[in-house]
């Protein structure tokens, strides 16, 4: 019921959601991060720590399962280079009750931002730059403690 994937291939959202829906739960909540098209970013490049990243995502999914009554958890993170409009990350949860699915989904994306080793580089017209972490992300992650 836990599915974790770190993959350079595009994220197949319909397939991921269908797999969650097949868990037989009443509700499926998802969050999808998309490369924005509005701030001059031509492409995004995601680097990860092979082995540790997958383990960190599994640990995160397990923490969510311990905390909420979930029938399915999926975390898919794309790596490598992707362009505006493409999906970076997909988090999905299936639960009998909508509240649990929604809360667990919010938890997973908040914690993923601080607890999983990924590094993001933006490709702009003038060159590339490594994205700085946002302090708000740490506040959001800490709010679940």
């Amino acid at each position, binding site marked *: 019921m836990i599915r974790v994937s770190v993959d350079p291939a595009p994220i197949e959202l319909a397939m991921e959601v269908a797999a969650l829906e097949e868990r037989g739960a009443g509700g499926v909540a998802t969050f999808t*991060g998309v490369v924005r098209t509005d701030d001059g970013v031509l492409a995004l490049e*995601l*680097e*990860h*720590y092979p*082995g*540790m990243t997958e*383990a960190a995502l599994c640990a995160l999914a397990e923490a969510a399962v311990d905390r909420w009554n979930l029938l399915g958890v999926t975390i898919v*993170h794309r790596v490598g280079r992707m362009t505006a409009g493409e999906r*970076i*990350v997909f988090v999905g949860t299936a639960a009998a009750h909508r509240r649990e699915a929604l809360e667990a989904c919010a938890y997973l*994306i908040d914690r*993923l*931002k*601080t*607890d*999983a*080793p*990924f*590094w*993001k*580089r933006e490709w702009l017209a003038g060159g590339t730059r*490594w*994205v*700085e*972490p946002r302090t708000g*992300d740490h506040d959001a992650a800490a709010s679940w403690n």
Partner: protein
Amino acid sequence: MAITMLYFAWVRERVGTGEEQVEPPAAVRNVADLIDWLAGRSDGHAAALAEPAKLRAAIDQRFVPLDALLGDAREVAIFPPVTGG
């Protein structure tokens, strides 16, 4: 002791490699000591590791604070704060 060092993101770029084997002396006890010691290996290392406050680390694939003891670490990774999602 032999340690596999891994570097990610701009740390990797400045060091000039993503992976290397090192054998720090016994005086290198924690991650901060290791960062200090590594900084002497090349100009690239020095540039990458000049500001430890901007660095994060993992020992054997677990996040650790910079004062974490190396113990019998086999793999140590140094990288900037994570920015996934």
